[in-house]
C-alpha cells in the first residue's frame, strides 16, 4: 500500500504548511489591534498614576513587548513548540494554558453533544423528508427557519421565552453561585439546569442545516441510476433507502468532521449570550481586553482542532469511499 503512504505523506506536508501559516497569522492579528494591552491591565491602578507608570514599563518588559516584532515572533514559535502559551495579561498572573484547560471541559460538554445529537437527528429527519413528500412539505419550512437563524438570535429567543417569560431556566453561567464544581448530585443537577438552554440553541440551529443537507442528498441519490437498477431487479423500498443512504452520508460525514473540528471554537455568540465559560467566552474576554497571549492561545487550540479534524476526514474518506481510495493508490502505483 505505498499509494496510501504517499497519500498520507502528501497530506501531512500540506497540513504542516497550513499550520505554519495559521500560527503566523495567529501571531500577527492580535498585534494589529490598535491600543495597548498593558494599558488595559493597568487601568485598575488609575488612582495611582506613579505606580501605574512604573508598572507599565515593568510589564512591557516582562511580557517582552519591547522587543522587535521578529524576536517576539521567534520566541512565540519557541514557546508554542514547547507547549507554553504564555501568561494572560487580563487574568494576570494566570498562565493561558491553565485558563484554556479550565474552559475546555465546558466547551466539550456543551458542543460535543449538541453537534452529535443534531447530526444524528438531522440526518434521520432529513432522510425521512427526502423519502416522503408529505413529510417534506411540513418539515422543510421548519428546517429552513432553523438554519437561517443566527445562533445568538436563537439563543436570545430561547432565553426570552424560557427564562424571562416562563422562568424555567437560569440565564447565565455554567452553574449557580451557591454551588462549587464537584461530582455531587447537587452540582450535576444545577449544571444540567444551566446547560440545557445553550445546548438547545446550538442543537436546533445546527439541526436545520444537517436535515436540509441530508434531504437534498437523498432526493439526488434516489434518482440515481444504480437505485433504478436495484428497483428494476425487485429491491424493496427499505433496500433502496439503505443503498441511497450510504452514498448520501458521505458529504454529511465531511460536514460532521468539520463541525467537530470547530468544536472548541464552538459558538462564541451562544456562550456570550449565556455567559457560558467556554473557550468562546474566554476568547471574547481576550479580544475585549487586548490580551495578546490569551487570544493567541485560544486560536492555537482552534487551529489545532480544525487541522486534526480535517486530517481525520481525509483518512476516513479514504476508508469509506473506494473511489477516493483508488484514486490515490492507482496514482501511487
Amino acid at each position, binding site marked *: 500500500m505505498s499509494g496510501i503512504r504517499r497519500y498520507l505523506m502528501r497530506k501531512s506536508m500540506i497540513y504542516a504548511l497550513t499550520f505554519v501559516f495559521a500560527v503566523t497569522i495567529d501571531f500577527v492579528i492580535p498585534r494589529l489591534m490598535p491600543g495597548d494591552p498593558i494599558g488595559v491591565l493597568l487601568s485598575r491602578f488609575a488612582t495611582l498614576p506613579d505606580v501605574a507608570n512604573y508598572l507599565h514599563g515593568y510589564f512591557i518588559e516582562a511580557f517582552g513587548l519591547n522587543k522587535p516584532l521578529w524576536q517576539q515572533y521567534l520566541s512565540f514559535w519557541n514557546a508554542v513548540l514547547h507547549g507554553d502559551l504564555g501568561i494572560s495579561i487580563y487574568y494576570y498572573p494566570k498562565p493561558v494554558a491553565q485558563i484554556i484547560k479550565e474552559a475546555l471541559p465546558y466547551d466539550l460538554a456543551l458542543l460535543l453533544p449538541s453537534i452529535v445529537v443534531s447530526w444524528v437527528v438531522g440526518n434521520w429527519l432529513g432522510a425521512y423528508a427526502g423519502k416522503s413528500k408529505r413529510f417534506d412539505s411540513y418539515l422543510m419550512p421548519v428546517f429552513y427557519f432553523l438554519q437561517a437563524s443566527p445562533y445568538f438570535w436563537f439563543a436570545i429567543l430561547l432565553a426570552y421565552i424560557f427564562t424571562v417569560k416562563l422562568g424555567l431556566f437560569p440565564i447565565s453561567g455554567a452553574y449557580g453561585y451557591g454551588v462549587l464544581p464537584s461530582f455531587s448530585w447537587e452540582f450535576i443537577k444545577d449544571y444540567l439546569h444551566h446547560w440545557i438552554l445553550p445546548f438547545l440553541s446550538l442543537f436546533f440551529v445546527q439541526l436545520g442545516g444537517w436535515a436540509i443537507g441530508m434531504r437534498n442528498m437523498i432526493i439526488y441519490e434516489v434518482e440515481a441510476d*444504480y437505485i433504478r*437498477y436495484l428497483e428494476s431487479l*425487485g429491491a*424493496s423500498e427499505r433496500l433502496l433507502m439503505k*443503498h441511497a443512504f450510504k*452514498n448520501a452520508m458521505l458529504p454529511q460525514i465531511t460536514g460532521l468532521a468539520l463541525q467537530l473540528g470547530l468544536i472548541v471554537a464552538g459558538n462564541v455568540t451562544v456562550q456570550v449570550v449565556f455567559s457560558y465559560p467556554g473557550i468562546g467566552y474566554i476568547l471574547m474576554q481576550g479580544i475585549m481586553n487586548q490580551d495578546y497571549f490569551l487570544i493567541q492561545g485560544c486560536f492555537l487550540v482552534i487551529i489545532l482542532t480544525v487541522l486534526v479534524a480535517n486530517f481525520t476526514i481525509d483518512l476516513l474518506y479514504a476508508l469509506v469511499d*473506494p*473511489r477516493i481510495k483508488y484514486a490515490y493508490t492507482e496514482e501511487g502505483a
Partner: protein
Amino acid sequence: MLRVNDLKVYYKTPSGYIKAVDGVSFEVKKGEIFGIAGESGCGKSTLVNSLILRKPPMIHMGGEALLEGKDIMTLDEKEYRKIRYTKISIIPQYSLNALNPTKKIREIVWDLAKEHGYTDKEEIESKLRERLRMVSLSEQVANMYPIELSGGMKQRVVMVVSTLLDPKILIADEITSALDVTNQRIILELLYYFIKEEKIVDSIIFITHDIGLLDKIADRIMVMYAGKAVEIGPTEKIINKPTHPYTQLLLNSLPRLGINYEKERLQGIPGEPPALLKPPSGCRLHPRCPYATDICTMKEPEMIEIEKSHFVACHMYRG
C-alpha cells in the same frame, strides 16, 4: 412465454399525455431472441421498461402483458416486485452507472438475492463467481467496487448480475450503444451463449436503434415507429425483404462499406420522428412516407399477416 396485447403506455405531462406506446401487440417465444428496432423516441425503451418498472409519470393506459398467463400490468405492487429479477430482468441502457459505487459487486448481488428469499449466501456467491468466469472475468471481480472496472467489464458484470437468478425473460435495452465494436461483439456473443448454450434465460428482448445489429443476433424482429409496431417477422425476412416503407427506409439509411459518401450521399429518412403528444392522424408515418395516399392520412392501418408469421401494418398490403 410473453404475450403483449394492445398495450398502451403513456407519460403524463402538464400539456397532456405523451403516447409513447400506443396499442402494441407481440409475442416473445421460448428460446428466442426477439429484437425491437426503431429510431430514438419511438417508444421501444418505454415499452420494455413498462414491463419491469412502471413509475409515474409512466402510466399503463390499457392492454395487457401476459407472462406465463399472468397479466403483469395489473399485478399488485408486492407480486410485481417478486417477479422482477426472478421471472423478468433487465440489462439497462445505463449499465455503466447501474452499480452502486460504494458497494462491492458481491454485496450488491447478495442484497438483491435476499430480497427474493434466498438464504444461502455461499450458494449465491459461488454462482456469481462461476458466472463471472463464464463471461471471461476473474472471480476477483466479485470482490471489487464498480470503480475498479472498465466500461466493457462493467457491462459484462451487469449482464451477470441481471441474470444471476435465472430469469425467464431478459430485456437488453440498448446495451451495446456505449461500447466500441470489439466490446459490442463480445457482449453479443455472450448473450447468445447465455440463451442458446447455457439456457440461463429462456428469451431475450433485444432493443437497439441499430437494425444491422439485429441481423446478427435476433430470431425475430419488431420494427417500431412513433409508439406503434409497424412490422414483425423473422429476421431474415425483415432484413432481406422488408415490406413496410419505414423498415425499408431504416435499412436504406444504414451506412455501407465500399461507398464513398462524398460522391453518393448517405440516404436518410426525410423529416423527423413526430412528437408523440399529438401524433399524426391515420398512419403515423404518412408525413414522411414516399408512398402515402389519401387513406394513409385518415385511417390507421391494421396489422395484417402477409405471409406466415410476417406481419405488417400498411395500407399498401391491404386485402
